[in-house]
């Protein structure tokens, strides 16, 4: 909310000081919104399809810790199909992470999504020349693989990401929307109490830690 006020205030100030800049800013932001609206619904639909049709075991097998070289190829495939901005990949990558994709593969998906852009290659060649495009491509693909390896080496698992403290978890009943993901994914730790979730077993919840916190789509789970 505070951010929104800040943004509005800055736009307003710009409008007063430099109307031409204001118009440019509005048109740029409009362009970004347009781009977002053309990409996000597609990402949304694919996330729904994955949620409905692709069981967790398949994702773990294809993109999990032990997926090996096949996982690498799968990650590259997922990422390369996009032409959208990298932020469009975040919800999709996060969902795959929640379903068992490894740090390496998620990072590779993000990297591939950002730079490979198969649909955009022709465009790049047109403006910058085939040699430029080809060279960049040949250098970038191994780079993102290497980069993902380094990230995975430095951060071997998702759970060790942020919440190092071992505090007890709690569900904010006011924020909870009753989607049931926590209760179905971590059935030993959470359970549904009518329309909201609650911690069922302190120990089990503590063990799930960070994963449960990031799993909740509305952020109702946190360290008490």
């Amino acid at each position, binding site marked *: 909310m505070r951010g929104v006020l800040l943004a509005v205030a800055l736009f307003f100030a710009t409008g007063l000081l430099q109307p031409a800049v204001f118009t440019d800013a509005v048109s740029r932001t409009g362009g970004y919104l347009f781009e977002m609206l053309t990409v996000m619904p597609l990402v949304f639909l694919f996330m729904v399809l994955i949620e409905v049709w692709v069981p967790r075991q398949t994702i773990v097998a294809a993109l999990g810790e032990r997926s090996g070289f096949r996982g690498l190829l799968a990650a590259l495939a997922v990422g390369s199909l996009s032409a959208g901005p990298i932020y469009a990949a975040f919800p999709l990558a996060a969902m795959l992470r929640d379903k068992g994709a490894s740090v390496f593969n998620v990072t590779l998906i993000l990297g591939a999504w950002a730079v490979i852009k198969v649909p955009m290659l022709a465009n790049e060649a047109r403006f910058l020349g085939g040699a*430029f495009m080809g060279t*960049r491509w040949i250098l970038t693909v191994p780079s993102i693989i290497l*980069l993902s390896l380094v990230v995975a080496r430095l951060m071997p698992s998702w759970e060790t990401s942020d919440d190092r403290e071992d505090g007890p978890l709690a569900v904010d009943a006011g924020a909870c*929307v009753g989607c049931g993901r926590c209760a179905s994914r971590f059935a030993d730790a959470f359970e549904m109490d009518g329309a909201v979730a609650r911690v069922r077993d302190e120990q089990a919840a503590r063990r799930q830690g960070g994963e449960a916190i990031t799993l909740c789509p509305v*952020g109702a789970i946190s360290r008490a």
Partner: protein
Amino acid sequence: MVTMVFWTAALGGLGISVVRRRSQTKEAFESVFRTMCSMAGGLLMVLALIGLVLAWVPPASITGVLVRAGTAGGTLVAALAGGITLIPAFAAFPLVGTFLEAGTGIVPASAFLTTLTMVGVATFPLESRTFGVRYALLRNALSFVFAVLIAVLMGVIL
């Protein structure tokens, strides 16, 4: 063209899902929708702010700086500018083309393009909220390093 293929596949898939697994599809729809909504707010703000920043300092305005700065300085400026900039891919290529035509070296021009796509200072808040601060820092910092390396190598090769 490619988007059409994706849309057809997505909508077709959705149709099948609604027919074969109706309630599951409905639940999935709601769940994904909530996730998207919680991300949307922060994202919209970032887009607005970046639009404003780039209106004040348009990427094209650094062309002069890039041409004058020489390889090392120019690469640094280009890499930093690319990191904070957020523009659609189809707009990025003509822009880099402009840099090259104006006399920017291959290395700074490539550095701008590689950091533009690989590093996201603008998207950092969203990324750290989704994957954790440590992860976001790691990925972006390493991407910056690799992006500059790629640019340097492009200068050597091309």
